[in-house]
């Protein structure tokens, strides 16, 4: 049996006596888009935090490409190829759009601290490479024309896109998006869905996403995990999820369909 691309085994997080996430088993195949949905406070973001090491899982395991990465420090998890965005936008507000993206390339620079200080050696070539890669990503996300502006001056939708651009600049294998279309209008959401589909196709990205926008999630995800009060209650294709009675009861509202 081949090892799954990514999976969590009974991942649990407790804060004091409160169980925020209980026995989450999540599986993502190479190139798959999966959704993680559930009512507010269900533990979706906690799941992402536990996967990326922002909070320490209290039990369970996270396996990425056959490697047990449970409890690794956040930056190490990022460096092996899991990038994420945040529910509350967390850009480097005072840096320019380009710098935001270039900073994400720091994990992969090939020059030392001393070379940076004296500006010799591989410094210039590496800086050029970093810059052109950042510009490539910005072009992909349609942000290249504003690369000199400060991140905080951007409108909301573009800040969301910039966060994804920053994550993509790390050339991740798995991208975790926490409510990427929250606050976008329907038109922006549709455009964003198309963009995500394109990225998924072109870069062969695996994506895990959290969102409350049901049409968006149902449309783009291949499989969906539903959790409620920290407890996983369903794991199925979008069509089945919409018919699942427990899901409807817990989340979509009784007698309300989708």
């Amino acid at each position, binding site marked *: 049996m081949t090892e799954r691309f990514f999976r969590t085994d009974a991942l649990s997080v407790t804060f004091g006596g409160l169980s925020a996430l209980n026995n989450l088993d999540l599986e993502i195949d190479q190139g798959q888009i999966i959704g993680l949905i559930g009512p507010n406070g269900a533990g979706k973001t906690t799941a992402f935090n536990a996967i*990326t090491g*922002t909070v320490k899982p209290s039990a369970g395991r996270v396996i990425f490409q056959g490697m047990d990465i449970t409890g690794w*420090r*956040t*930056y190490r998890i*990022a*460096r092996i190829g899991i*990038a*994420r965005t*945040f529910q509350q936008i*967390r*850009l*480097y*507000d*005072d*840096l320019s759009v380009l*710098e935001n993206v*270039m*900073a*994400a*390339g*720091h*994990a*992969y*620079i090939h*020059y030392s*601290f001393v070379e*940076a*200080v*004296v*500006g010799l050696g591989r*410094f210039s070539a*590496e*800086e050029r490479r*970093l810059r052109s890669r950042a510009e490539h990503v910005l072009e992909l996300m349609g942000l290249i024309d504003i690369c000199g502006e400060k991140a905080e001056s951007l409108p909301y939708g573009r800040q969301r896109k910039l966060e994804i651009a*920053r*994550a993509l600049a*790390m050339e991740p294998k798995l991208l975790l998006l926490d409510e990427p279309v929250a606050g976008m209008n329907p038109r922006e959401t549709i455009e964003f869905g198309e963009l995500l589909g394109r990225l998924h196709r072109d870069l062969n990205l695996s994506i895990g996403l959290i969102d409350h926008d049901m049409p968006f999630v149902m449309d783009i995800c291949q499989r969906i995990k539903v959790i409620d009060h920290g407890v996983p209650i369903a794991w199925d294709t979008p069509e089945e999820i919409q018919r699942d009675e427990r899901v409807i009861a817990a989340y979509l509202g009784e007698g309300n369909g989708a």
Partner: protein
Amino acid sequence: MLKRDRILTCSSLAVFLLFLLYAESQFSEYSVRILNNIAIFAILAVSYNLVNGVTGQFSLGPHAFLAVGAYTCAILTLSPEEKLRSFIIEPMIWPLSQISVSFPVSLVIAGLVTAFIALLMAVPVFRVRGDYLAIVTLGFGEVIQVVTNNVVPITNGPLGLKGLAPYTNLWWSWGICLLSIFCTVRLVNSSYGRAMKSVREDETAAEAMGINAFWIKTLAFTFSAFFQGVAGGLLAHLITTISPSLFTFMLTFNLLIIIVIGGLGSTTGAVIGAVVLTWGGELLRAFEEPMTIFGYYYEGIPGMRMVIFSMLLIVVMIFAGSGIMGRKEFTWQSFLDWCRLIYDRATRRG
């Protein structure tokens, strides 16, 4: 464009060196001393700003690092005879009492020793997030006070170290000042600098983007301590007598004012702040002298310049909340644009 900038930088450097040459032979001893002070404070401000402004970690330790650097450098350069003469309470312990190395070597060693101590502090402090750095560095400053006062066989206690050779001249102080500015600017504009800024802006996001915040903060802190140690060595051989009472928290406080007035996070601002405060502090001495204003005889009050200084500070904070430069840096392009603007205004009026 890049070529133009390089030519402008080189020529302005040349002009500055000519100025130093002129200053060295023509200026009074007092003015040369001020120029030296400016250089030393610029080194301190630029390196302090790297930790407080660029990396966003609130350190209160430069006076302690300055002390470590000054004492290390002084102990290393003093001749064995001089050591025998000035250590009157207790003789200096053996290996140190015989060591005497040249000024440049001891400057480097002073920097390295200071950086090493900073590294030792950084490792436990940066393991946790929050304002622990301020507490630990503040405490370290007190520890240094106690150590320099009480470890008599090494530091000569409250008597301090006297009779240091006045090695520090304009070339040493400004040479090292320019070197520290050059290195810091390079660093800030490199990927390491971007990583430092991302840690300042949002540590959680930086970690999630593969940046080892612990290591980046440690690097910034250690790098800055190196130059603060070197500055200590320069200061010791400028004033030729050091004692524990010289390295008080007020020094750090002044540096904090310098980098805040200059613009927290801007290397240019740190340099401007150092010039303005060091030089301005001397200019304001006039207010402590007796003088006649509009026929009214004013006797001069010692400490008056600090009052005026505080008022100026308040004015700056009201009208330029983020300091003179904000977080902007000097570029030749912006400088030329600014010149053009001034020129246009002047000609239109004329």
